[in-house]
């Protein structure tokens, strides 16, 4: 299958129009039959990491099936039948070789808005959350390693997580596994009555702040009002979550089967990766959410494998005498990812299929190696409930827009979108024929 990137990007406005139309729809019940409601809905996970991978990460041959996975991907060998290695993708507007995740899920042109030195657009996970998250406790969960914040932006580039909202503002993340644990299981102490008081207090606070904001805005010109947009938005976001919390306040949190993770875990260590992955699997299993993103650092892993410096150096010239450290880092990262897939595979859904079968789990970075931003390292695991083909290396003769991959995944999981960012078409080879 050949592909050719079209030079004309779809105007953003077109997309927004589409998205708003969808937002305006009432809840799905009236539109879909009872059978569909009973059907198991797909879960979507995106994992993104800083500073890309070490050379040698990619298979050395172009075989579609049965390729030699090489030293790093060997860590995932037993999972290869459940994933596609998507090659040759790139972001046409990704130009900063130190930004590993800023536009990974948005595919935006950061510099394309006059009067703005930086402007991102909505990320694909947030679109998925609109369609998959209406009836879950959390529409989506954003996780991130704590910022190590040395040498600029830590190889991620700007952002608080992989996710960006409809206005292109960064969506904040949970940065400690213990915090995620409490989101899923409660803190074990707060009673329903206390939670009710807390919600009332919060409601009262938000109402007051909203009316105070209106007063302040009344003293401002239209231009100045835009300045407080993010503040207004944050009130609305909490209100939205609050409304959900009120709905859910009577529902007890599920009981935790495992012990709570430790409070302090080194950023980007395999301990952090495993703790987050375990809780992510649980969150999907108990239905707390259907959409999760996780932005990873790797400084902790470097310490574990004994690399005495930072990942920035490792990915540049310094990577050479230390090639094995780079490969080790990639392996540890993939081993943890494999463990996560294993876990998803061990969970059975009502139809007898595994949770992984019903999921789409993407893994990658917008940097490949060194300063290279082509042929991004991207894996897609899971079958999306039977819509996705797996067990293959997907190659394209010409570079393929990453937005096309995200469009494919969104549509495969039933999100009613026609385009995403600068997408031009779907990747047919990733889809089970007839879908």
């Amino acid at each position, binding site marked *: 299958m050949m592909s050719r990137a079209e030079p004309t990007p779809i105007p953003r406005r077109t997309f927004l129009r589409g998205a708003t139309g969808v937002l305006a729809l009432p809840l799905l019940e009236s539109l879909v039959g009872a059978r569909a409601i009973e059907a198991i809905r797909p879960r979507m996970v995106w994992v993104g990491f800083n500073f890309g991978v070490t050379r040698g990460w990619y298979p050395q041959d172009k075989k579609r099936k049965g390729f030699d996975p090489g030293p790093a991907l060997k860590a995932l060998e037993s999972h290869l039948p459940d994933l596609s290695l998507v090659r040759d993708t790139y972001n046409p507007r990704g130009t900063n070789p130190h930004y590993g995740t800023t536009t990974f899920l948005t595919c935006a042109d950061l510099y394309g808005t006059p*009067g703005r030195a930086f402007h991102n657009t909505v990320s694909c996970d947030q679109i998925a959350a609109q369609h998959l998250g209406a009836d879950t406790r959390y529409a989506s969960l954003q996780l991130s390693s704590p910022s190590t914040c040395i040498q600029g932006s830590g190889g991620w580039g700007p952002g608080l997580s992989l996710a960006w909202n409809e206005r292109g503002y*960064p969506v904040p993340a949970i940065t400690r596994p213990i915090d995620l644990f409490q989101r899923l299981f409660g803190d074990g102490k707060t009673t329903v009555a206390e939670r009710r008081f807390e919600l009332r207090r919060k409601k009262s*606070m938000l109402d007051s702040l909203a009316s105070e904001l209106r007063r302040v805005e009344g003293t401002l010109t239209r231009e100045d009002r835009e300045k407080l947009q993010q503040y207004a938005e944050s009130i609305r976001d909490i209100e939205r979550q609050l409304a959900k919390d009120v709905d859910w306040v009577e529902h007890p949190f599920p009981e935790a089967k495992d012990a709570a993770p430790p409070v302090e875990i080194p950023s980007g260590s395999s301990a952090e990766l495993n703790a987050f992955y375990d809780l992510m699997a649980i969150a999907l299993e108990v239905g707390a959410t259907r959409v999760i993103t996780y932005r990873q650092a790797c400084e902790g892993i470097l310490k574990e494998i004994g690399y005495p410096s930072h990942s920035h150096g490792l990915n540049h010239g310094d990577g050479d005498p230390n090639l094995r450290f780079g490969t080790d880092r990639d392996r540890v990262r993939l081993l943890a990812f494999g463990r996560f897939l294993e876990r998803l595979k061990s969970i059975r859904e009502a139809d007898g299929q595994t949770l992984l079968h019903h999921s789409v789990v993407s893994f990658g970075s917008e940097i490949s190696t060194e300063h290279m931003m082509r042929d991004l390292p991207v894996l897609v695991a899971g079958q999306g409930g039977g819509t996705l083909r797996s067990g293959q290396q997907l190659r394209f003769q010409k570079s393929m827009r990453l937005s096309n991959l995200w469009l494919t995944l969104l549509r495969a999981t039933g999100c009613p979108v026609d385009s995403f960012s600068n997408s031009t078409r779907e990747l047919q080879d990733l889809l089970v024929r007839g879908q």
Partner: protein
Amino acid sequence: MRVLASLLPPSISGSFAWIVGPPHPPGSMNRFSQHLPAAWISLLFAGSLFASLGEERDAEDAGVPLEPRAVELIETYCMICHGDDDPSGGVNLDGLGHSIENPAEAQLWQDVLDTLNTGLMPPEQSRRQPSTEEKIELIGSLTRTLVLARARLADTGGRAVARRLNRREYKNAIRDLLGVTPNIERLPPDDRVNGFDTIGSDLTFSSHHLERYFEVGREALGRVSAAPAGERRVRRFDTPLLTREANDAQIEHYQGLIDSGQKQFAGLSPADLVRLPAAERVPWEEHLHIAQRTASFPGFGEGDLIFSDRRGLTPTIPAGPRWSRGEYVLRVRVANVGKPPEGGNYLALHRDGGESRFVQVRASYDAPEVIEIPFRLDDEQSDRIVMRCRQVAKKDPTKLERQADGHPVPDQELRFWQSGIWLDWYEVEGPLRAESTDFYAEIFFDGLRSEAGGQDDYVEQIVTRFARRALRGGEPGEELIQGAVELYRVAADAGLSFPQATREALSLVLVSPSFLYMIEPGGETRAPVSDLELANRLAFFLWSAPPDAALVGLAQANRLRDPYVLTAQIGRMLDSPRASAFYETFTHQWLELERLEGVILPFDYDDALMHSAAREPAELFAHLVRTGESLTNLVESEFVVVDSMLASFYGIEGVQGDGFRAVTLPGDSERGGLLSQLAVLAMGGDGKRTLPVHRGAWVMRKLLDDPPAPPPPNVPALHPDGVASAREMMERHRADPACASCHQTMDAIGLGMENFGPLGRWRDTEALTLRAVKTPKGRYQMYEVEDPPEVAIDPSGHLDRGATPFTTYRELRSLLADRNDALVRGLAKALIHYGMGRRPSIVDDPFLDDLVERSRASDHDARAFLIEFLMSETFRTK
């Protein structure tokens, strides 16, 4: 002139000359007039800085033309295929125009540049091939043009976006208001733009921020309690005794660990240990050595023996809730034991989340000395102070002496416990002056109530008074007050006590938009700021804190716009201890000193020196401003501003006791100026090797106002063949057009600084520690060299694309020092970033031109420069 006249009250606008004449208000004006030359003052009010607002250039129509040489090269080599006639690949460069006017055009030229950078164009089979030199020219030119075009397209015409308080400012605002330090670690980290945490358009705010600010503010309110008496007194602490029995027990314990399961690591060198997983990396042998060694020192059993970093009891000042705010002095009776290293033993005071202080210990055990160190406690919270022994590394660990088996020689290995500090007792006296602000009584101005119900009126008064103080001179709206009272009711209904429920109400004020944001209501066009806005701008600029009562008072009386009052206030603020927030934070962010944290220090390097090194740039800058010396000292200087530890490192005699001070350098010293400061040199390396590219790029960004473009994507890294010096590695950049266009200046400067090693020491030779070997696949694999050869360093090079040669570091420094205008211009741009919360705009260009000219006229007097900046129309326009 028009604007000037409108800014001045009628009584003043006629006569400017008297400004230096009349009696000065105590303390402030004196210093100002001393350091602001009379010529400046007359210039200041001659009005050209207050140029008409109407002269602004319109940022909208600022297309950036391609440079003529670039157009010429494109015509010659690209148009054959990409002209109007059936353009190859559908790419028609003819249709593009020769100017970048919108993002789409920028993007298309970016694509052209990317294609050139990756060597895809022109294709090999093309008849006409540009020479390497022409490729360098074209890539360099397009890169410059695109950087400029991106900046123009992002231009906001000098308007700043209302921004929230960042973590530092929030911390100070809460401390001024409540007398307690909020736990800002719980707040999300601030976004940095070009290193600055003050850029409104980029300081994000989200639901997460709102929730965290609320939680942190409420927690801080919960800690406000009635102030302790604050009587001055002396508290003496006898050091915990390390008894012989306890020490023997430890020796036995370590020996046991080594003999048992931990044995496998007992024989490893520090270098090997560092490669072990953290959990297993416990150097028990070291502990054993220290414990054994400890018992042999004089003073053992009589007081404490503390050693560098590894071990030793660490006496702690247990500041508890009963310590009130104020100045204190710590006295410690100490002596050296053992033979101190060449650089000396230092008594270190490390504070949680605060600065570290170092004082060299000179006394021997026969005649101990008492060291005095003043410090400040800012709230009633525990602010632990830990005492340690630190040392200055004798040599850089890259030259660690090694035995034949690769292990460090024993003397080196034992360095840390060859010598330590014996500590007899310590005492704390204070607070030296009563600072009686009772924040609790300030809030509950009419006492507490036993019942929470039925107190709405009183709570309303409490909230109103509190909000007036919190909102920095702004008047709280009725919505806020009523909202707070409503929160009080909800809390009281739920059974909270009166003070608890009141705190709930007050916590609303601390997340209200008027508190969290600096809002400057304005119209469609740029306009002068109000007095109150000016007071806020000044205070957050110079103190990172809200304006104090004096500033707010002057602003509310509309007197701050009076130039006489304003200059006096700026002088007062610059000399206030609170201005350290400006000197330290601005310098740190401007010079990107956070990179210092990214330097991995070798395992056996005492990082105490780096604490002092990190402060040195700010101490230099503050010294220049306080004394009104020339900004050119930032590049080339006959003095340094150092503490005793840095003086020892730089080889300067006679610096004793606590604190930084200016010291004249010996004539043959290579130091002086930022370039030779340890912090700057260390962050231009990775701890093991120098990074000439980083150093050179830093100099271009900070001292030359000529920031190189960010690295292009998809250009592969270069690899040398064989054992290569830094110079040989860099030379490969010259052969590749994609690299050479940007690297020629950067690399030359970086190589010119090669005489400074990775940790700042002067050196004449370089150890070649890396060897590149070509693999069968044609790639290069690098290996560490076992016995690295030493080669002489050649610092020579050229600036200005070959036009200006230099042969030594000193010559390079002189060349850079001659470019003072660029230095000052870059500094002014950094001040716009930091102090005005926005990127410099094209509309600032006339202001910058003018400021540079005035600065030159005063020999770049640092103090006058800052005052000029703060008095300027640009600073006073929103």
